[in-house]
């Protein structure tokens, strides 16, 4: 627990809260990227370089842009006049609180089962690569096939109805 941890934790929480509470949808998306950045800092703070940089590259670089594109392309992207809360917010808040409680309970419970004071060593990118292509090669391939199928599906949806390519 050092200053860097607190700064990135505050950044993450503030970004996440702002992404829910702000009125303008594009502001929400930008606040979400702040939360992603904070999360990446948390990973880097734990010496997980690969996870941290992948978080920035995938989430800040690609996902945030897609979110923003989606907001601009759908209807009703104008700022609502009265408040940002939908009528069903108590249900949403209950579900979120429930999941948070479950995860929090799991984390706190698991802490007592772990051996105390295990030295944390930095996992190099090299080790991650070795693990991915030797031990976990089957899950990796399954994920790759899934993503390829999703890509082809997206292209098919984007095709014209009468089969003309555009």
């Amino acid at each position, binding site marked *: 627990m050092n200053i860097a941890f607190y700064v990135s934790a505050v950044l993450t929480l503030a970004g996440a809260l702002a992404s829910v509470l702000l009125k303008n949808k*594009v*502001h929400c998306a930008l606040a979400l*990227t702040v939360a992603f950045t904070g999360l990446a800092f948390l990973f880097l703070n734990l010496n997980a*370089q*690969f996870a941290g*940089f992948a978080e*920035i590259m995938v989430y800040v*670089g690609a996902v945030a*842009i897609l979110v923003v594109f989606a907001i601009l392309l759908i209807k009703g992207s104008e700022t609502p006049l009265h408040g940002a809360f939908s009528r069903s917010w108590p249900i949403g808040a209950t579900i979120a609180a429930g999941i948070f409680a479950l995860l929090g309970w799991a984390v706190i419970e698991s802490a007592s089962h772990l051996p105390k004071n295990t030295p944390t060593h930095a996992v190099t990118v090299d080790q991650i690569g070795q693990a991915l292509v030797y031990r976990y090669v089957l899950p990796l391939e399954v994920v790759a096939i899934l993503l390829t199928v999703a890509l082809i599906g997206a292209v098919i949806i984007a095709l014209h109805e009468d089969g003309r390519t555009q």
Partner: protein
Amino acid sequence: MIKNLDQIFLLFEHWIVSFLPVAWRPMGAIILSVLAIISIFPALFALTTVFERKGLGRIQNRIGPNRVGPLGIFQPIADGIKSLTKEDIVPTSADGVVHFLAPIVQVLAVFMGFAVLPMGRNMVLADMDAGLLFYFSMGASTELSVFMAGWSSRNKYSLLGAMRAVAQMISYEVTLLLSAVPVVMIAGSLSLTKIVAAQNYYTHGLPHWYIFTPWGLAGFVLYAIATTAETNRSPFDLPEGESELVAGYHTEYSGFKFALFFLGEYLAMFSISGMGATLFFGGWAAPFPFLEWIPSWIWFFSKLMLSIFVFIWLRGTLPRLRQDQLMNFAWKFILPLCLLNVLVTALWHFLGVGWERWVFCSLILALAYVLMGLGGMRGMKVGPRRYRYAE
């Protein structure tokens, strides 16, 4: 003496840091290196603007800037003073905070990329294990600043420019990453210092740069195309096509904020050129062993400036692409070639040392290039151009 000249900046830094108390020395060294980076590259930017305007002028058969100082050399100083003293206009309907943050985010993200570039022997600010990944993740975050600028201006030209820029940058980022993958496969590391070290040896007086292999040459050409698109340079400068969009996403920026965007664009060019030199041209390594007495940082910056020259040359030579041409080129030609290049690199690795791998790999790449080119051209009516002058 030669060794000292090679390490002159490091020695200078040690000398300054030695005045500090011992506890502050590591921090002092880091701050000095950061200061060096954020002063040298903007200075280079100032020089490059004159260089570019002069070069373009020469290509277009005119003189270029020649009023301020001898041969117009002080033009960037005049431009700087002008942009500092100009009124900072923010449109009334603009989103103030985002409008203000966009240029800052861009320059910040671009500057971060320089942290992992090895600019000479032992001259790297942060020698990270995942240096290449860091560099590309910082490059990816500049896209967001472009969107922020375009959206917050509340101007149709800005928004259209930003949308074009983001679509283009996302498309070409895939190829940018994939064109760098073969280098990582052969060097076996994401650390840029290790990638340079892997290329920095000679047999029969010839360097082992990756550009001198079939997959390296193909990878470099793909990388160069992707970087040109990624930095929004001509012929891929649709996001700021003056004839259609005024100035693209920075239409509504004036004064020093505009200068920041301009700076960010050129800094991105410098860093991505430096990255290209590091990946394919041996970074700070000398081309021949008998030239090793020239300091390593001179080699790095000469390679960088040579690539800037090519950028300017391209800008003065090639016409702008159309949006559909741009996208088709990225997804139907460049991306398949990148994927093929990754496979060819694996083949190169497993064929082992010998002449076979040179023949096979070159043949596969050349065949793929020719066949895909022919396939893409089929159905296109390519003939002599017919000019119509106000019929």
